[in-house]
């Protein structure tokens, strides 16, 4: 093997790093067998770990142990029994659950459910503990008695034979009458029409084998449902409850995996195959992908963390991300093919050209995903770590195994350059040619899209994380529509003392709270022991309905509950309603047809009610009144996670930007790179807001996760751009070069990524789906931004920096300490027209721009500045005037500011002073002229609008203090700023309200970043363009106020010009109001 000298022409202005990259490439190619061995080791180690993978099928995986809502839920579940419930809902087609047959069936089902593993209790209409008075005794019995309860416990088979059960029509009628009159049953166990009924099972899962318990119980419940439906074709069974939800979390992961994995590989095969046109190349890509994914899963397995519905798809993320790197190498190989036959040279060249970019891309992607560790949802943390690991593995494989395969596998050599490159070159030309239009256009797009963000609604109805393709979801929808809400809010109302629940006062408050909740439209049912106590009170008083109220004496309540518990059947007690100390009573309410936002709103209302009507009732040791329950934790989780991820996102941004800066060694380009890195996510959120609106907690991690991905394209783009620039190409040519060299690879890899994430988006689990959809959207927009926004931005900024640098070299400039606009300060403050993007009509927008500009120029209090006015006639003859200008800000908006101008030259007018108290139009300003020769202060007329100020091209009107209200505005368009094409300007017209104005309108260009006036065109009364004012050399003072060093007014009618040059800006010099009065003018003008 000969040492092939790297092609100098391609590596151009290379430095140390360039050659070290080549040396590395050479070494990699030489050690190819080592890489293959390494890959085999990875595969074996990972595969060995896979056997250890376990599944955690629970909605609770999303709750971090430190999540305060989770802590509250845990506390609640320690006090009361942790209910993993199962809702077994039957809906007879006959529409009556109170027929003897249906009641008998419910009895049988109740008994069958008792046989499920881990059952703690079964509640149904039939075993409802009906109480009534008989003579002086209180009777407690099953609503539909004589159920052969526990009859065949010894026989494990569940018997649905109804003949053994004797439910008479009389019993059925009685059951209907009682059931439909009891708040304890209505809307929870039976709907008001008696058409749908629930049999509720509560489980006590030991939690020893999470992966097994839920699926086993769920499977048996499903089997029973099938059995019922088979035996009674007229009855349809719907299942829900925590057991089914958790089971669905497990099922969804499996379903996703089964559906998405082949789809993903199909998509990758098609895309890579089509672009590389090579079976071998596609095969090589597949190897890299599979090994990377395997490594990620292996790492998860070895870490011992159970997989969950989110991490179950982590290998698909890895696959998608790994494709991009591999394609870069293979596309490069494809480009080298026509030039040489040497396979090693293909590999070497691909490596030396793309190694740095691939490393940076993968590292930044890894950083982005690692920042998911800031999430409060463990699945995202795990996902971030797995994906980061997998991406790094894929990077290593792409840079080692892949080149090795290239040299070893018989890839067919193609001699024709890929045709698509021509298209990319054309695209590059087009972008360069249209950059002036693209920049503002894209900026507008960004703003328009960004506005959609506010339409995004956080929606975490966890039972609806699953889409309609799952039977579970259909059942849930049915139950919510027909019977009762699935979402339970739990209110553990603390009386504050042991046995406090017997306190009539406490009971009254709880009862009032229950009554209030029942009045709320979103509440379907409320469960509370207070109902039972009322009922018992009535029973103890010979079923006298007037005694259906809370007992007045503490002891009565206590005795009733004691008696009640004594009379109950096995498994029935009040421990899931009242804590062991009899201090806390639980109130649960179910809701239906509500969004997460609705539930949050209801929660707030309820808390408000409690704080007003029962201030001493709390729900936690911290004195708070928050409810708890699974749904409540989910209600708040997105907000919490968005907040938590903010830090992570910022950190990722800083780290990634740091990597970019390090790699590009160009601060300017590095800073510019932030734009295409951040904007895509913003736009994606906006588009999401406009289209879908609702989003799950996935949104919290999207920005951080996508940052690392979208940055890849930026890296490839910018590194090529910087390289071209260093070779001396112009910004425009550099952009063309980028499009020619990496445009195609960027397009392909991005398409591959989009395809991959679109596949992931098919997940039936909303969290995965949302994450994938948002990511795909972000990446797509990132490509658009990289192609259409980044190039014009680079060109413009490069040109601007270049110009600035040449300006800096002139000694006068560098000597000038500070400077900006002088006389035109008020001008700038008010002419500033353009507006915030939120305004709807052009007029509103125009006004908004003016208001914003005005707002940004508040608070400077006072300014002194030296000015020079250069008058130039059409033949170029100049005359000069110098002066000092003093400004005093008057905070009141109905009063204008005050200013003094004191001339220094021409020398015959030295000391001539003009004091102006600005007024709001149409009132004239107040002006005093000081003539030093005779010490005269003369109030002069300021109704001169159109006249020239000291014969300059500035009229008094141009220079007068002008306020926002002096004009009407209309925004016209956005476009690159005249004279500073790197900036985008609002272009808007303003129409003077004062009829004496010399103008019919003014058109002003205001840059969108800082709201600085860049140019103003003045149209005279006839409507002709009369004067053009341009602003140059803006500098910022006190980190806030922008002032131009130089204003140039050109009279288009006469060819005369006037420059206003400002130097030595001094802000907040302590000028006082007393110095801006006419009596003080002689001294001020001194």
């Amino acid at each position, binding site marked *: 093997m000969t040492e092939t000298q790297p092609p100098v022409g391609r590596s151009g202005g290379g430095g140390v790093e360039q050659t070290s990259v080549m040396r590395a490439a050479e070494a990699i190619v030489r050690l190819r067998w080592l890489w293959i061995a390494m890959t085999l080791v990875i595969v074996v180690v990972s595969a060995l770990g896979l056997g250890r993978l376990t599944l955690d099928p629970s909605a609770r995986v999303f709750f971090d142990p430190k999540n305060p809502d989770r802590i509250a839920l845990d506390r609640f579940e320690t006090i009361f029994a942790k209910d993993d419930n199962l809702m077994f809902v039957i809906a007879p087609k006959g529409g009556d659950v109170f027929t003897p047959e249906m009641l008998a069936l419910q009895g049988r089902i109740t008994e069958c459910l008792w046989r499920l593993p881990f059952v703690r209790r079964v509640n149904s209409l039939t075993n409802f503990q009906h109480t009534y008075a008989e003579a002086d005794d209180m009777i407690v019995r099953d609503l539909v008695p004589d159920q052969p309860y526990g009859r065949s416990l010894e026989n494990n088979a569940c018997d649905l034979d109804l003949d053994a059960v004797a439910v008479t029509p009389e019993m059925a009628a009685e059951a209907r009458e009682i059931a439909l009159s009891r708040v304890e049953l209505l809307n929870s166990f039976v709907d008001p029409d008696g058409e749908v009924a629930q049999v509720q099972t509560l489980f006590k899962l030991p939690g020893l084998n999470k992966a097994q318990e839920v699926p086993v119980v769920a499977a048996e419940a499903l089997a029973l449902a099938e059995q019922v439906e088979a035996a009674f074709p007229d009855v349809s069974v719907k299942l829900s409850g925590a057991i089914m939800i958790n089971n669905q979390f497990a099922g969804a992961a499996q379903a996703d995996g089964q559906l998405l994995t082949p789809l993903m590989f199909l998509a990758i095969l098609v895309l890579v195959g089509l672009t590389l046109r090579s079976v071998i190349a596609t095969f090589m890509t597949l190897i890299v992908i599979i090994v990377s994914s395997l490594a990620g899963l292996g790492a998860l397995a070895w870490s011992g963390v159970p997989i969950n519905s989110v991490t179950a798809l982590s290998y698909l993320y890895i696959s998608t991300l790994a494709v991009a790197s591999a394609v870069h190498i293979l596309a490069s190989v494809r480009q080298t093919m026509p030039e040489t036959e040497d396979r090693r040279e293909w590999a070497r060249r691909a490596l030396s050209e793309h190694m740095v970019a691939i490393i940076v891309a993968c590292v930044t992607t890894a950083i982005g995903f690692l920042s998911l560790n800031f999430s409060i949802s463990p699945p995202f943390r795990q996902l971030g770590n797995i994906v980061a690991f997998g991406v790094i593995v894929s990077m290593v494989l792409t840079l080692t195994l892949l080149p090795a395969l290239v040299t070893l596998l018989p890839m067919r050599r193609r001699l024709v350059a890929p045709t698509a490159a021509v298209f990319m070159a054309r695209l590059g030309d087009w972008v360069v040619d249209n950059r002036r239009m693209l920049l503002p256009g894209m900026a507008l797009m960004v703003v328009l899209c960004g506005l959609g963000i506010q339409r995004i609604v956080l929606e975490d109805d966890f039972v609806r994380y699953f889409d309609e393709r799952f039977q579970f979801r259909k059942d849930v929808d049915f139950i919510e529509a027909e019977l009762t809400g699935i979402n339970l809010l739990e209110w553990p109302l603390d009386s504050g003392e042991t046995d406090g629940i017997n306190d009539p006062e406490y009971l009254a408050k709880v009862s009032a709270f229950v009554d209030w909740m029942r009045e709320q439209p979103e509440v379907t049912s409320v469960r509370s022991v207070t109902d039972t106590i009322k009922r018992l009170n009535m029973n103890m008083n010979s079923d006298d309905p007037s005694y259906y109220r809370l007992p007045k004496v503490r002891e009565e309540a206590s005795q009733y509950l004691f008696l009640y518990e004594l009379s109950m059947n096995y498994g029935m007690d009040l421990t899931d309603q009242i804590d062991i100390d009899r201090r806390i009573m639980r109130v649960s309410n179910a809701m239906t047809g509500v969004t997460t936002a609705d539930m949050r709103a209801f929660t707030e209302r309820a808390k408000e009610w409690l704080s007003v009507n029962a201030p001493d009732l709390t729900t936690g040791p911290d004195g708070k009144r928050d409810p708890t329950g699974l749904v409540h934790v989910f209600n708040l989780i997105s907000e919490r996670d968005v907040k938590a991820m903010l830090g992570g996102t910022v950190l990722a941004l800083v780290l990634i930007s740091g990597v970019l800066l390090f790699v590009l060694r160009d601060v300017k380009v590095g800073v510019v790179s932030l734009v295409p890195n951040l904007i895509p996510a913003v736009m994606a959120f906006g588009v999401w807001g406009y289209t879908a609106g609702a989003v799950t907690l996935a949104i919290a991690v999207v920005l951080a996760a996508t940052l690392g991905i979208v940055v890849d394209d930026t890296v490839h783009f910018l590194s090529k751009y910087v390289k071209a620039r260093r070779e001396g190409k112009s910004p425009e040519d550099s952009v063309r070069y980028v499009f020619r060299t990496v445009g195609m690879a960027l397009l392909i890899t991005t398409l591959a990524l989009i395809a991959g994430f679109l596949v992931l988006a098919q997940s039936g689990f909303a969290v995965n789906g949302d994450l994938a959809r948002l990511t795909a959207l972000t990446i797509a927009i990132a490509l658009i931004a990289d192609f259409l926004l980044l190039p014009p931005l680079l060109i413009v900024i490069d040109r601007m920096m270049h110009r600035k640098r040449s300006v800096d070299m002139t000694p006068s400039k560098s000597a000038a300490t500070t400077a900006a606009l002088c006389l035109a300060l008020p001008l700038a403050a008010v002419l500033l027209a353009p507006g915030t993007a939120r305004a709807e009509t052009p007029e509103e927008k125009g006004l908004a721009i003016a208001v914003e500009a005005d707002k940004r120029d508040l608070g400077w209090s006072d300014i002194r500045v030296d000015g020079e006015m250069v008058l130039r006639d059409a033949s170029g003859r100049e005359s000069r005037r110098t002066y000092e200008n003093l400004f005093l800000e008057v905070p009141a908006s109905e009063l204008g500011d005050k200013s003094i101008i004191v001339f220094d030259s021409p020398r015959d007018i030295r000391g001539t002073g003009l004091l102006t108290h600005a007024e709001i139009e149409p009132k004239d300003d*107040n002006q005093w002229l000081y003539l030093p020769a005779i010490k005269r202060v003369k109030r002069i*007329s300021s109704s001169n609008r*159109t006249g020239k100020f000291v014969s300059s091209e500035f009229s008094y009107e141009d220079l007068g203090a002008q306020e926002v209200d002096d004009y009407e505005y209309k925004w016209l368009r956005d476009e690159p700023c005249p004279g500073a094409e790197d900036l985008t300007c609002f272009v808007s017209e303003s129409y003077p309200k004062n009829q004496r104005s010399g103008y019919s309108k003014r058109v002003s260009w205001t840059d969108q970043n800082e709201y600085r006036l860049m140019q103003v065109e003045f149209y005279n009364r006839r409507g002709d363009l009369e004067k053009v004012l341009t602003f140059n050399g803006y500098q910022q003072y006190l980190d806030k106020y922008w002032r131009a060093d130089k204003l140039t007014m050109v009279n288009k009618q006469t060819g005369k010009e006037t420059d206003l040059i400002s130097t030595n800006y001094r802000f907040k010099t302590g000028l006082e109001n007393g110095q801006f009065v*006419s009596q003080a003018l002689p001294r001020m003008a001194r």
Partner: protein
Amino acid sequence: MRVKACGVAAGVWLAAVGGAAVAQEAEKEEVSPLDPEAVEFYGSAEFEGSVFAKEPAFAGQNRNDFSFAIEPTLLAEWFNGDVALTVTPFLRWDAADDRRSHFDLREAKVDWRIGDWELTAGNDFVFWGRTEAQQLVDIINTVDGVEGLDEEEKLGQPMLKVTRLTDIGAFTGFYMPYFRERTFAGEGGRLRASIPVNDGDAVFLNGGGEWDPSFAVRWAHVIGDFDVGVHGFHGVSRDPALEAFQFDGVGRPTALRPVYDTISQVGLDGQYTSGPALWKLESIYRFDQLDGNLERQDYAAITGGVEYTFFDVSGSGADIGLILEGAYDSRGDAALTPFNEDVIGGVRLALNDEQDTSFLATSSVDLESGASILRLEAERRLVDGWKVELEGNAFLGDSSDDVESSFQDDSFVRVKLIYFW
């Protein structure tokens, strides 16, 4: 050339006092106590030539005139300009009139600002006027009579001035320890009364002479579109009566001398600014002014009118201002001013060009005699630092007014070339 030694001395003394005060204050600060933050030296020098249309009316007068004047200013500032020393001497040499060759300390003062308080010590001059024809209310400074007919040039007045700026206007108190005598054209100069005034022989009826102090208070305020001022004055009248004190053999007076006496005066001035129209008013009531017969007399005088400006005429940038004022003096012809019952009309034209070219033509007509004075002023900058001024006066018709009638033959054109540095 005569030097008003006493006046100068007074000015210098006051300035020195003020300076010492500044120095003391500065020493407390410990930071380069006497180094001013800013020192500026600027001023002007002018060459003036006057050509008269007619032969002199009186014996001893020269036909034409050439003159040179210089007025430099030294300005030094301390404490952000809160303390300032201004010294502006004025020196004129005149070929025709030795009285017109004179020196004056126009300014030699220390200004000191402490918040809303302003203190001035030294020679200064003060302008209160509103109207264009004359400024009745300006009583602090004595007219430098040799400088021009318009009485705009005044002598520096030694004073201690305290001003307090408040929300309800500026209140100023003046203490003027020394009186500056008016200057009069000498025998060789034109534009004088038939009999020359020998100001060296001035008589003071008040006893204290030049060192009799004068006092004044003024309140000035801006109320919306109204600028108003009210003043009171007690002290030596700036307007002397003239008394013949030298006679020839046949008893005709050959020389006049100014006679000064103590007067009191109250005055009101104001301007209402209404768009392009400026409505102006000055009025005074003076007690104990000596009349031509050296008798004390109270009188009232009022000047008022309007100045209306057409701005940017036809888009040319030029402004045309029309001035119409009336002047009334209750003493009638006996008044010592040219304006006793006159109407003054004028046109001001400002081209607003780069040279700041402007013209002012006024005509004052005495309503009793019908005599009128036509007056034209024009000025234009040549290049930076050089400016040319043109002044023309024509005295038309017979005037019954003593003052004006003396000028009957003195219509003239005067050209000034002024250099500024």
